[in-house]
């Protein structure tokens, strides 16, 4: 039940990132997705992995709260295609996670597919650096969470690596393009 709820929150957070242009909206979306992924990873890969993922993602969300376009910017005019992407992507991920694939933790499958898909799509559709870097952080967290799908013994390194990338990506110097 909790895992199912966490899967839904992961989708909701990624959708908020897709639908937001302002730093508050982006930070909220990143925080929601991070908490959901951390909860799912916590139950599957153990507390250390979950905490590592949570700390990395929440650091990224906190950083986003201070840098970027001011305000919430959720669903600005012209965001209908993004809304359709969120709903359509969520339904497709749900079908793949529950109907097509099987095995342990359908919530993890759903969360990984939906967060990676929506974050990847957001990077392709935006030119704003705060949006891009938030999406990159989420993609890193989702990639690390995917290591929980393996049958092998889980190592902590993917989670720590993803947390470091998510936490560090917000500090990327954003130099403007320069002429030759």
């Amino acid at each position, binding site marked *: 039940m909790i895992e199912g709820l966490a899967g839904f929150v992961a989708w909701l957070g990624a959708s908020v990132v897709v639908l937001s242009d302002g730093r508050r909206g982006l930070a909220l979306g990143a925080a929601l997705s991070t908490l959901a992924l951390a909860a799912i990873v916590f139950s599957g890969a153990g507390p250390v992995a979950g905490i590592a993922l949570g700390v990395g993602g929440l650091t990224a969300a906190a950083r986003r709260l201070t840098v970027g376009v001011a305000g919430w910017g959720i669903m600005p005019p012209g965001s209908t295609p993004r809304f359709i992407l969120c709903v359509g992507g969520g339904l497709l991920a749900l079908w793949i996670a529950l109907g097509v694939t099987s095995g342990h933790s359908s919530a993890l499958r759903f969360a990984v597919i939906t967060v990676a898909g929506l974050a990847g799509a957001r*990077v392709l559709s935006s030119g704003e650096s705060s949006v891009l870097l938030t999406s990159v952080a989420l993609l890193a967290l989702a990639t690390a969470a995917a290591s929980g799908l393996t049958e092998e013994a889980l190592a902590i390194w993917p989670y720590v690596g993803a947390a470091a*990338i998510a936490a560090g990506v917000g500090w*990327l110097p954003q130099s403007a393009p320069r002429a030759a």
Partner: protein
Amino acid sequence: MLPEAAELLVLAAAALLFALVFAPAAASRRNLLVQGGTGMVATAAIAVVPTFDLALLTIVGLGVMQAGIPGKRTLAVRLRAPVLAVAVLAFALVFLRVEGPAVLERFAAVGLVAGLAAAVGLFPYIHPFAADEPVAASPIVWIAFVGPVLAAVVLSRAEGLLSVDAGQALAAMLIGLGVINMAWGSIASWLTDDTAAAWRYSFLADWGLVLCGFGLTLSDGRRAALLVLFGIVVGRLPLYLVSREPRAERVTSEGPINLVVAAALAGSAPFVGFAARVLLLRGATQLFWPLALVLALGMLLWLPGSLRLGRSLGRPRGRQAFGVALAVAVNVAAGLYPLPLLAAAKL
């Protein structure tokens, strides 16, 4: 570590050393060393890390770090390709790990090929290119420095993860994409207006051969792929770096050195590209002879573009001439006696 990846790492280190020694006098060697060294460490990490997930995270990190280098393209343009590559490869990984119908493995194979193409910058995911951008910030890093190691790692890991059926689908896609890249790269290298863009497209054409080599699933194909990658890292990349040397007048020349360079770039005997092409044609003949015919015809497309690129070097002098001679000599040596290279990679 995979022996093939280890060898390509050593070659990448040699290319970095070449760049440091033969960089234009005005360029900051300290910046080049820091940026190239960071790229080298990240590339080594892709090959060394124990799991595919960590390799993907390393690609994300490398993409973000490269996007932070000041350049002409925007952050969004530079981040898109590596992020898309990681997203697609992550999907492939999920499809490989979950239980489900066999068709999922075929989707995983599609994801592996698409992700590799997006990361390296191959057709249909060609990275936007700005001719006067510093090399460290340009897509050349992905196609000529990181890409060879990345391809060796991704495709060797794919071999262990895919079933026979999905492995055959992967091989077919690699060959198909390879032929398209051969044609696209060599024709664009010949016909494009900008010389720097022509150099970039020539890398694309070479990658077509690499993909075909990996797709042949025979030892000859893998050997050919390694030799073409050698030619990319230790031949084409150094010559591209030399071609970027600012000169007083941008003249083209048709002297003997230009013809020799053109022959090296076109894969003529006795250069390493020739040995690779022979192995590739032999492997293709064993597998399906009409494919060898297609490849042989495709290889002819290298000639006009290579002549153009050879001419673009002008009349190299001093340090530039020494750099060209060194690159050509290494390519001749590997072309005449490629066995140590292949043995080191256990091929």
